[in-house]
């Protein structure tokens, strides 16, 4: 089992005809993902290496039965692309694009909840999602993930997601699903959404969580873990030594007014019973101990 995507997931790529969309769309297909369609209103009727291109997501869904979409559209078009996907009838939308304005994200989050409550948006500004051996949507290098479980991964950071997958693979530990929620201020999918899904997934026995400074998503996750999780969790929070007021790359990664510090996040997670590592390797070692204890 896995969460959100599996071998039955059929994906339409919005922006498949662009260089990024084509590159990762074909890589994802090579991995085994069912890449069933692309969209581009100006190139409808053509194909990308055999993948048919339609004018709209709605047409792609009607013709191919696509259930998910992956967006490689430049930032100015992402707001409309997400709404097009939701209207078009897919239930899962992965927006890889970075640099989407915060107001667009805030509007999207609330609009989807109101008009399309059954649609899940992952991202924007995220590496995507992989259920190893079944489905890889986005820019994760599939071969660094070992299929099979028992660990689920949820991460706010791209490269640290790969690092986490790699640490586990080195130890021979597999992964059910690895979700990169992205580091932007208003992600479509939160830590809590993923933790709840992992808690409900029978194949996932433990969860590894990678957080970052800024905001309060990790603190909220800690509260959820304390109240609702029976499965063990290990965590790492990047930016322990980041100076206040400095924006470290991601829009989300900033410490302001003493709030959102890594120390506060790690304390909250520890208080919730999470085994916190001071670096990704240590978090991986904690997970190896947890997995060994599962028997």
């Amino acid at each position: 089992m896995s969460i959100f995507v599996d071998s039955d997931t059929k994906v339409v790529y919005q922006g498949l005809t662009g260089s990024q969309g084509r590159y990762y769309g074909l890589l994802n297909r090579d991995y085994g993902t069912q890449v069933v369609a692309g969209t581009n209103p100006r190139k409808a009727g053509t194909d990308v290496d055999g993948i048919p291109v339609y004018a709209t997501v709605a047409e792609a869904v009607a013709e191919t039965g696509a259930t998910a979409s992956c967006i490689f559209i430049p930032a100015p078009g992402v707001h409309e692309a997400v709404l097009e996907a939701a209207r078009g009838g897919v239930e899962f939308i992965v927006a890889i694009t970075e640099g989407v304005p915060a107001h667009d994200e805030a509007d999207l989050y609330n609009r989807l909840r109101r008009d399309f409550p059954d649609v899940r948006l992952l991202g924007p500004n995220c590496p995507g999602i992989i259920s190893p051996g079944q489905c890889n949507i986005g820019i994760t290098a599939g071969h660094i993930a070992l299929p099979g479980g028992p660990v689920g991964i949820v991460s706010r950071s791209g490269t640290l997601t790969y690092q986490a997958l790699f640490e586990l693979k080195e130890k021979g530990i597999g992964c059910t699903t690895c979700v990169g929620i992205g580091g932007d201020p208003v992600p479509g999918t939160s830590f809590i959404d993923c933790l709840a899904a992992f808690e409900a997934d029978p194949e996932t026995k433990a969860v590894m969580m990678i957080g970052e400074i800024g905001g309060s998503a990790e603190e909220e996750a800690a509260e959820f873990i304390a109240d609702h999780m029976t499965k063990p969790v290990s965590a790492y929070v990047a930016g322990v030594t980041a100076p206040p007021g400095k924006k470290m790359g991601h829009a989300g990664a900033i410490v302001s007014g003493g709030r959102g510090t890594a120390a506060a996040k790690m304390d909250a997670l520890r208080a919730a019973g999470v085994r916190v590592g001071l670096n990704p390797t240590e978090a991986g070692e904690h997970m190896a101990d947890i997995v060994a204890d599962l028997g």
Partner: protein
Amino acid sequence: MDLFEYQGKQFFARYGMPVSPGEIAFSVEEAVAAAERIGTPVMVKAQVHTGGRGKAGGVKFAATIDDVREHAANILGLDISGHVVGRVWIELASDIAEEYYASFTLDRSARKHLGMLSAEGGVEIETVADENPDAIAKVWIDPVDGLDEAAARAWVAAGNLPEVAVEGTVDILQKLYTAYVDGDADLVEINPLILTPDGRIHVLDAKVTLDGSAVFRHEDYAVFDETQTRDERETAAHARGLQYVGLDGSVGVIANGAGLAMSTVDVLNQVGGSPANFLDIGGGANAEVMAGALEVINNDPAVRSIFINIFGGITRGEEVANGIIGALERVRIDAPIVIRLDGTNAEEGRAILEPHLSDTLQMAPTMLEAARQAVELAASAGTDENREA
């Protein structure tokens, strides 16, 4: 992007908010000429991207032109928390009956916009929040609905402003919300928002942070980008399109991905070192990007060693290794380098690096070991220098 106060006021004025007439001045002569055009009394206000201007002596009332000359001379060049004042805003002085506070920002937990209004303005809102939280009226706004007049009216009522201030505040808050949304701001703050003795609501200060990601729909924001506070290193990195934050230490950091770069900074601190910077080169790690990153680090005189931390995902180890070798052929690097290369085809990449290794170009198998090596190298480089001295 942080705006100076005067830029913030000009931004607010576009949305119909009442601000005082004023001019920007870069010298005492310009300040005097501005004050002569505006007419005294005026305020002479330091323009810096930091708070605490008043306490530092950066905001002065000038009743006469001689006062303007004296205050401008004192304020220009003043160091306010590390920010040297290069420009002053000369603005017609206002009579104040009462001072309020108003702001909009994004509440990330609620995924809604948060408006804050207080009848206790003119002081730090954090202080009000600590000492008298009930004095702040908060409203959460769904971006799909926006802020209509009825909601603004209910909010102002909750703020306990005097009757005479209500109409003007309802009006200005709606305009402030429009500026916040249409202008793609992360933060708009007016502190103080004043009530004048003749009953007008007026903007006396402006703090505005714009969303750098939204520049594509605001071409005119380029002018604000030019006035951002960056040190020399940050300016050099910005010109090369690199994500760079200057820090105070001696180990230069290059990593691919913001999370990994942050993590590298963490690990260096954990093994007793001190990072000189945060530098994210993104996913590619080709020779050109790597050379640019090394140039930026090389120009930092505090750097004693360099830690290159790359995790290959889609980008394969061979490409990363060739990128590093190519960059080293193009840039002469003074400080010793430690490389940690992991991920996709890491072994092939390491094999490419192997013949190039020396005392000044080292490789380590893990992040932690690479960090230790880099810190040791930085320490011994420091010792050598002491010996020479």
